[in-house]
């Protein structure tokens, strides 16, 4: 069955993005804009992780390390060397990419797959987090507070709307990358690797090369997100860019929406991002809210994996099939 090669979904994406981009023109409340930005940020993380986990089946638990490396690199370069975060962002991204390539290559070279790969990436991320927490040059466990910068050319804006457009732009880029990878031969290779790597290799798919490629692309993108986080929230700390928290975000959003699909991460995290925010309206203290939110996410993650592994997109596909059968049955006779 030949898949459609039209660019229609891509055009739809652009139109949707343009539509979404007009939101700041109507919404002037800083609070709502911040909510939208944080949701988009979460969506961005999920899309990046989806590339590696959903499409290629690599259980990478180190993406939060790349996030943190992006955030810390651009911030430290700005604070200590006055390098604009617009440039520092790429330095961080290249650093992350190099580490991702190195890690994946080592895992390929020593045939670390599946379960082992998850463990090694988890250990890697843990080591990075510990490294930063004990390294005074990056302020260790105190975190770095970004001072009020002045200018747009230092990746700082007084208003919220430019941040909104930046993160929206990043999301569109990531979705576009995913879209074009998915419909190209690379996408087929990645899916083959996910389904059965040995069989794919037997058919001639150079799995190592493409695993390294997808990890590199994903690390690069997620690093850019790290810099965005630093520049928007103005405070980075091993707890919010290097810990397991962002990884749970990625897992919940991607699994809930549907791993391995284009819109899965978007739908999944849009739902939970707003749910997260709604939870904070409950009349309990903020620490409790944060903790309860996290507990809820953990429970949701487990529930989804047990009951709905294909996520909301999978559910929607199943429903559409059922509806189609129903309509055919009723219209045919």
């Amino acid at each position, binding site marked *: 069955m030949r898949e459609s090669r039209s660019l229609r979904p891509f055009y739809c994406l652009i139109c949707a993005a343009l539509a979404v981009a007009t939101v700041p023109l109507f919404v002037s409340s800083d609070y709502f804009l911040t909510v939208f930005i944080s949701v988009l940020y979460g969506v961005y993380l999920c899309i990046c992780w989806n590339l590696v986990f959903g499409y290629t089946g690599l259980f990478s638990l180190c993406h939060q390390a790349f996030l943190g490396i992006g955030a810390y690199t651009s911030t430290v370069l700005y604070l200590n060397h006055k390098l604009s975060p617009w440039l520092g962002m790429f330095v961080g991204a290249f650093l992350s990419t190099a580490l991702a390539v190195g890690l994946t290559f080592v895992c390929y070279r020593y045939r*670390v797959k599946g379960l082992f790969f998850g463990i090694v990436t988890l250990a890697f991320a843990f080591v990075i987090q510990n490294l930063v927490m004990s390294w005074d040059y990056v302020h260790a466990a105190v975190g770095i507070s970004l001072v009020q910068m002045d200018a747009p050319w230092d990746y700082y804006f007084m208003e919220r709307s430019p941040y909104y457009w930046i993160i929206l732009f990043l999301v569109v880029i990531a979705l576009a990358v995913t879209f074009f990878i998915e419909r190209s031969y690379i996408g087929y290779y990645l899916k083959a690797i996910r389904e059965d790597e040995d069989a794919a290799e037997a058919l001639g798919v150079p799995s190592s090369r493409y695993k390294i490629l997808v990890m590199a692309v994903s690390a690069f993108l997620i690093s850019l997100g790290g810099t965005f986080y630093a520049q928007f929230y103005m405070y980075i700390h091993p707890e919010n860019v290097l810990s397991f928290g962002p990884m749970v975000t990625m897992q919940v959003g991607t699994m809930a929406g549907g791993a391995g699909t284009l819109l899965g991460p978007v739908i999944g995290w849009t739902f939970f991002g707003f749910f997260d925010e709604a939870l904070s309206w409950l009349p309990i203290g903020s620490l409790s809210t944060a*903790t309860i939110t*996290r507990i809820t996410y953990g*429970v949701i993650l487990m529930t989804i*994996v047990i009951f709905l592994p294909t996520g909301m997109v999978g559910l929607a596909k199943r429903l559409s099939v059922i509806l189609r059968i129903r309509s055919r049955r009723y219209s045919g006779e």
Partner: protein
Amino acid sequence: MVRGFPDLSGTPAARIAMQNIELILQGICTGIMMGLIYALIASGFTMILGVMNVVNFAHGNFVMMGMYLAYSLGVRFGLDPFASIVVVIPVMIIFGATVYFIIIKPIQGQPQYAQMIVTLGLLYVIENVVIWIFGGESRTLNTPYTTAAIALGGVRLSVARLLGASASLVVLGGLFLFLYKTDFGRAVRACANEPESAQGVGINLNKVFYTAFGIGAAMAGIAGCIVMPFQVCNPTAGIPAVLKATVIVIVGGFGSIPGALFGGLVIGIAESVTSAIWSPAFANVVVFSVLILMLLWKPSGVFSRG
């Protein structure tokens, strides 16, 4: 000099060794004691892995639960952590069985990533429930023997660790007796080796799984109690513990209890010696390096069953 063996006395390693011989001896002794305790944690982990092929990422958090249980009982009722073991065992067995029923059983047939995500979710939930109940700060429990030590030669043996190591030995011995001298233990081993054939001879796989998970959780809980007198406990202790257990299991071989003991000792000694000579932070790097080395050399472990 031993004939044929290269003369290493001039190398940097030898120099460091000779300068720090006392530190190294101290490190080895502490390492053996800690290694036995790690072996306890790793045994539970490897048993769950061997019997039902499940990587329980939340195992470190089971240990952490044991620590907090010991802490609460100690603070509320003045119970010594070793006495709390009596309470912790049934609590953790029930908890383990419940976790198995709710979370692990439904995903038994599914691909490996499902089981990994589910246990990771459990890790996250337990960690945050503990934060919710106890807050995020670290806790310690002081006992009369927390700072006591026996001097033996040039080496100081911490009494708390000594007691802990002895308790580990007792529990591991009990586990050995259970697995090799009882009928049900034989059933457990059979399931670890050949689940289908075990079912074929009429062993109730479900009962075995429940028990294995419960026992694994209980051993983790006991380890948590043992460690409480000399360790600081905080909610984030789960991931480092489970990573250590994973390294030990990779060193010792999946599903192998003797392997867990061996691996535990290796990691314990390596960690202690590097802590003594360099720094505790460096010890983490060393453990990670052992992981890499094992994956390069023999991923199935030293005592692997192939």
